[in-house]
């Protein structure tokens, strides 16, 4: 009976003891709980705003799915001989899909859509005719779909990542960044100007790529490497391969890389000399390059080069220099240096100088070897970034054509919206 009384007292007394707690402490607990409830309500409201009443995306068996992309458009105005003008308009849409399918496995794909409309510059068909090129009205329209990146990736760690599929080559500075929204000047440097082509080094390939990095010491300096082997989509019987090794000075924001590669560049199919319209002519400005994206003559090549990427606060500098030994024809040489200054949080000023000697090639009719010569280009660009997703650029180009002293001036207005 005595024991039961004690239990009863305890039952009655415990809540009473709680009630007798310091009121300030109780108030603090209540305030704390109220704050937590408010936080959870805010969080729930934010989540609801993002999803609305829609069903959430299901990613089949993937652990996560990232979806993004960009829309980039470029309008060009070119001033030609005798006051002739031409313009063209290019729009590019690329979607990014990345699915994490397991801890170390992911898939990345970037299907793209390309649309070109406008007139072209008409340069003299041979390099011996002087005079600035005239612009003609050559209404042309072209659209295509392409896959610039489709690969599966296995990650062993920072020291080893393996990609297989359609992968980018690791060479160069602009080429490494590839997707246009990252660029301060919309179009690539002269030796990578042709979209996904292999002018001096391949921009992409079908095959495998190994990448990795290793931190050295507490300073954070690291060594990065890339190696690849594969083929190009239009010449599956010709292997290409290469490698890049870089040293990154962490505190300086400086990366210095050495590059090497070799392979075969497939030429255009042979054609009869009597053909009224050769498959491709050489040394004619097509779009914004004085060179073609592909050579007439098939040749083996072996290239080496260095690239330097320096990012320090509001300054970005990218420089690359490459030399390619071409079988049986003159060698190729390229230099590109770009300097950008983000002089305000939303504005950047950029300058780029390109030099590209494309070596030599069979002439369009296959009758002999033609020196393609070298071109140089100065570009001054202004970028405006109204927010993190939008970049608007105006670039002024002064292009000196090969084998003559003729020049082309043009202005590119471009914008990229990425999401």
């Amino acid at each position, binding site marked *: 009976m005595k024991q039961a009384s004690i239990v009863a007292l305890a039952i009655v007394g415990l809540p009473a003891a709680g009630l007798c707690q310091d009121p300030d402490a109780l108030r603090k607990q209540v305030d704390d709980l109220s704050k*937590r409830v408010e*936080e959870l309500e*805010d*969080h729930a409201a*934010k989540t609801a705003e993002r999803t609305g009443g829609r069903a959430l995306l299901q990613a089949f068996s993937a652990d996560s799915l*990232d979806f*993004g992309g*960009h829309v980039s458009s470029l309008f060009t105005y070119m001033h030609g001989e005798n006051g002739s003008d031409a313009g063209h308009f290019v729009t590019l849409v690329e979607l*990014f899909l*990345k699915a994490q399918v397991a*801890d170390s496995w992911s898939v*990345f794909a*970037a299907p793209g859509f390309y649309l070109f409309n406008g007139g072209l510059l008409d340069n003299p068909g041979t390099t011996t005719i002087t005079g600035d090129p005239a612009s003609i009205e050559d209404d042309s329209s072209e659209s295509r779909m392409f896959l610039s990146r489709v690969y599966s990736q296995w*990650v062993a*760690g*920072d020291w080893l990542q393996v990609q297989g599929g359609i992968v980018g080559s690791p060479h160069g500075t602009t080429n*490494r*960044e*590839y*997707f*246009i*929204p*990252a660029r301060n000047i919309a179009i690539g440097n002269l030796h990578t100007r042709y979209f996904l082509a292999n002018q001096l080094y391949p921009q992409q390939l079908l095959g495998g790529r190994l990448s990795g*990095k290793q*931190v050295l010491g*507490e*300073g*954070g300096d690291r060594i990065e490497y890339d190696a690849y082997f594969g083929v190009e989509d239009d010449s599956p019987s010709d292997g290409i391969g290469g490698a890049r090794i870089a040293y990154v000075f*962490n505190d300086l924001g400086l990366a210095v890389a050495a590059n090497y590669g070799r392979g075969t560049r497939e030429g255009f199919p042979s054609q009869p000399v009597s053909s009224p319209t050769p498959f491709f002519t050489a040394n004619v400005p097509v779009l914004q390059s004085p060179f073609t994206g592909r050579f007439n003559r098939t040749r083996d090549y072996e290239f080496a080069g260095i690239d330097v990427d320096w990012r320090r*606060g*509001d300054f970005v500098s990218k420089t690359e220099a490459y030399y390619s030994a071409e079988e049986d024809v003159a060698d190729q040489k390229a230099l590109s240096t770009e300097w950008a200054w*983000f002089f305000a*949080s*939303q504005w950047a000023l950029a300058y780029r100088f390109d030099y590209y000697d494309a070596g030599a090639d069979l002439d369009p009719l296959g009758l002999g070897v033609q020196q393609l010569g070298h071109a140089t280009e100065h570009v001054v660009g202004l970028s405006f*970034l109204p927010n*993190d997703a939008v970049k608007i650029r105006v670039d002024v180009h002064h292009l000196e054509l090969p084998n003559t002293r003729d020049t082309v001036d043009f202005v590119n207005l471009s914008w990229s919206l*990425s999401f």
Partner: protein
Amino acid sequence: MRKLAMLTVVLFLCAPAVPVAAEVQSPQPPPLESYAVVVNASNPSKETGDAAKKTVKALFLKELTRWADGVEAKPYDRGAKAPEHTAFLQDVLGMSPAELARHWLRMKNMSGVTPPMDVDTDRILLRHVERHDGAFGVVKASAAKVPGVRVLFEFKAAR
């Protein structure tokens, strides 16, 4: 007359004390808020000082993806306007908001890498860090002492 002289002396002696008292009473700047970079309690990282900051910076910016023991890093960010984010940006990353935005634009377009997920509150961030071995993020130092989480290093907000 003697009283007047004494009063004058007293006033003279007291006069300098008035501005001093005013100075003492003037509002002092608030103390600098302390923040902590927190990791999962199982994280074996022993780095301190600048070395720890450099590691956290590389992992947050996704230039590296693994802690030294091989565990995949899982960084969390705070909202762009959160004081934790601002302090982390200044003291640990040493970057401006525009520079950080350019970094993520470049990373996304080079390799499909996305920025860390934003987390609204200290408590939710701590919950994420507690749940994932490689997770880390920044919270107010006063909020950091919870089970399953440990402080890798603390820093103060720059003025």
